[in-house]
């Protein structure tokens, strides 16, 4: 396959966009990549799938935005091993997260989030992080005794004399929902929701 770089192409803009993202903690790290492959050498996803962190940076530096549509992007474990060893001070793990946020803000990859709307709901309505109920059936099947344990959680916590209670107060929940409204979280979630309804 061949490709052509036209005189007006500016592939580095893509990397610049990533560098300026709030999430990026590595300054110009992405520009310093020499494709040594140490990230891939230590990557659990590369070991067991076609995910290749080195290749992600190569494509970013090529300005190849098709990567935003690449399903493989979603194989990253967020284990930060690449981030902790990268010899030039880049972090593919962060770049991956930024790419996904760019994808989401471009309404790409919404379908990847549908199953995780439960996190959004529990946080928005109860100010608590909780495994989405959508997965409960799988967990019941995969983990013997888990459902029973969860039914008895209250008693177990009582026996351990844990205070304060699990659920936050209404004031706390109100404040948290307000924060998540003004940051644009609520609006985004509603948008993802409606796209989910359309798709179903």
């Amino acid at each position: 396959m061949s490709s052509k770089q036209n005189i007006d192409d500016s592939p580095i803009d893509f990397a610049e966009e990533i560098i300026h993202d709030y999430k990026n903690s590595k300054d110009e790290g992405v520009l310093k990549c020499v494709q040594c492959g140490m990230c891939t050498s230590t990557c659990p996803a590369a070991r067991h799938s076609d995910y290749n962190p080195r290749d992600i940076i190569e494509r970013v530096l090529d300005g190849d935005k098709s990567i935003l549509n690449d399903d493989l992007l979603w194989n990253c474990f967020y284990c930060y091993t690449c981030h902790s060893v990268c010899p030039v001070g880049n972090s593919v793990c962060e770049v991956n997260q930024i790419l996904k946020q760019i994808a989401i803000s471009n309404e790409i990859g919404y379908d990847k989030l549908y199953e995780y709307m439960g996190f959004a709901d529990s946080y928005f309505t109860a100010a608590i992080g909780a495994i989405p109920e959508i997965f409960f059936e799988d967990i019941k099947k995969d983990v013997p005794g888990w459902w029973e344990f969860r039914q008895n959680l209250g008693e177990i916590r009582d026996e351990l004399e844990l205070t304060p209670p699990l659920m936050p107060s209404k004031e706390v929940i109100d404040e948290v929902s307000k924060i998540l409204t003004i940051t644009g979280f609520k609006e985004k979630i509603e948008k993802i929701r409606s796209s989910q309804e359309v798709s179903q």
Partner: protein
Amino acid sequence: MRDDLKVGVFLCECGGNISDVIDLDRVREELDVEFVGQFENLCSLNGRKIIRDAIFDHDLDRVVVAACSPISHEKTFQDYVKPLNPYLMDMANIREQCSWVHDDSKKATNKAITLINASIEKVKQSDAVDPIYCQTPDEVAIIGGGIAGMNAALSLARQGTKVTIIEQSPSIGGHMAKIGKVFSPVKIAEECGMCLLNPILNELVWNNNIEVLTNAKVIEAERRAGTYNLIVEQSPRYVDIEKCIACGKCAQVCEVEVPDDWNDGLSTRKAIYRPFGQSYPESYVIDMENCTKCGECFRECNMKAIKLRGKNERIPLQVGSIIVATGHKLFDMNKRPEYGYTRYDDVITQSELGRITGVNGPTKGKLLKSNGEVPKRVVMIQCVGSRDEKPDGHKYCSKICCTVALKNANIIKHKNPDTDVVVCYTDVRTPGMFEKYYKHTQENEVRFIRGRPGEVVKKGDSFIVRTEDTLKGEFIEIEADMVVLSTAMEPSDGTIEIAEILNIGTTEDGFIKESHPKIKPVTTDVQGVFVCGTAQDPKDITESIMQATASASKVSEYNYGGVEIEPFIAEIDKEKCNLCGDCIQRCKYKAMSIQNDEIYIDPMACTGCGKCLIGCAHKAITVNGNIDEKITATIKGVLSKKQPDERTILVFLDNIGYTAADNIGVNRLSYPESIHIIKVISVNRVRPKHIKYALENGADGVFIGEFPGDLMYDEVERKVQRVKKTLEELNEDPERIAFSKVYIPYFTGLARKLIDFDKQIQELNEAES
């Protein structure tokens, strides 16, 4: 008093270069001095007689030569004014900075008169001073007895200089002695390293100009105008080198066995030992940390060379120069535990591989694993600790590891053609002729995989090297039974210690920093201290030797040429000084120190920048040569005959800025006549009071230029900011002061800045009127 001095002005026509634009007749008329002469070519040999005769005939005290730039001919005219002191002459630059930059004859003539008047005022403030001449003692200390130190020593000794090598370990030889083979990219062959080293070692031993102190290190150093007083501490050898004949019987009876560091711990040695076969001094040594003092060796020695008692000796040494050749050490593999070096015997470093393949090594040159078998596959991992910005890593490339890996891969292939050798690399760096050796290595069927391995793990009897083959884009696990790590070079402990003791600047990586990486590659920021070898940065044997001989040559310049120093340096009034030490902290040139309860200013280091003056609460420091007064007088001279409608801008530049300004004229560009350039020895000597004086006495603007490479740049920039601030507080417009970077080749930029500044000042004037 000074006003009564008789000044003579000599005008040079410069074959029309000056006189075509400047009306010298009018200049002559307007000058009010004892003598004015005009000549066609003052710099020609006739000039000497003309000037000298006028000095005698008119009994002149001071001379102003109005001609070309002092950059061109100051030395000439300093010579021509004999018998006057050379510093009683000043040049008014009416060529590069007047006739060559201005077209309007009338205005140029006015400016020439102003420039000459400024020089007249300045020269009246000049005093006769003599250049300081320093002769350094021609003894030299070389710290470190590796290949760099040995070569520097030999070079100097052959030139008749007395050299003392101070070596920390029991033998000279350094890393090269244990390296096994070296290779030549031109011959495409590996050669015996010891065979190349030994003649050097022998010559060094037999050279009467060289003394070798082993088991020794510098613990104190004191500097005085080109003389260093060093205290060297030598720990005892417990074996008399005069008596020992190195027969080795002592070691045979010694029962203590400890890892042999010369073999990188791959074999053992006794507590009494000889570091290696060709070590010098040719004598055994006792490692007292491990000695049990059983006395067996003592009883065995026929030569009665062993003395179990001994203590550290302090040896004072006085030298003129020092060469630091303290070398490097290798990266500590505990810092990259994922490669398993500390866990597995057959994960080794290239240095250890060098010992294993060396005929004088632990396996007598056979490539064997720890279990005695020949490895089937050796995987080499490059850049371990180099090109790595993570904690404890080094951002730099260690430069030699690619070629070392190639060399060792070839040696393996020569010995065991069936052993598969794989080099995992990020880039193979084989510049110049080394590329041929890389090709040779490929011909030897060494394999190269482009990828930086993540980890090495043991699976059963062999290792798994996990890496990506980046050219294929594939994660792979390479099975291997020996893994060799190409570890980074880092500054040795001795390098770090000596930098502290001698107060030499180091790089962020801890190597000794040269004063300029391009043009001063062997001098350090301390006068009389030079550096060579891997103490300065990673390099190979060839480069170490080149730098060693270069540093020897620099030392010879000192020894035979002496050093002539401009006399305008700081001086301390011991009565006023209370030894607060402020000046020591302030001095960027490390010229000040306390010695014998007095501040001592090293004339070789002081540049006369005057920074020390600021903090001296007791005004105990002066800088020779009336610099302050001369600057004030020059300003006064420029402004004395200023017309009300005239715009005058003063531009202060040091040697670099002044050369850039000359270049404007040389290239026949122009700038406004309002620009008057004043040359100062250091821009830092232009003090706030000078700027204020100028503005109060009619200057419309002040422009200060400084080369950003100057050590004082930041200082000057801050100072200008401060002055601007005070001006603002005094309701003056801070825009009347400008600070700018100057570069010699960027004279067009300077011209533009001067034009812009003139315009800015013009607008300010218009706004205020």
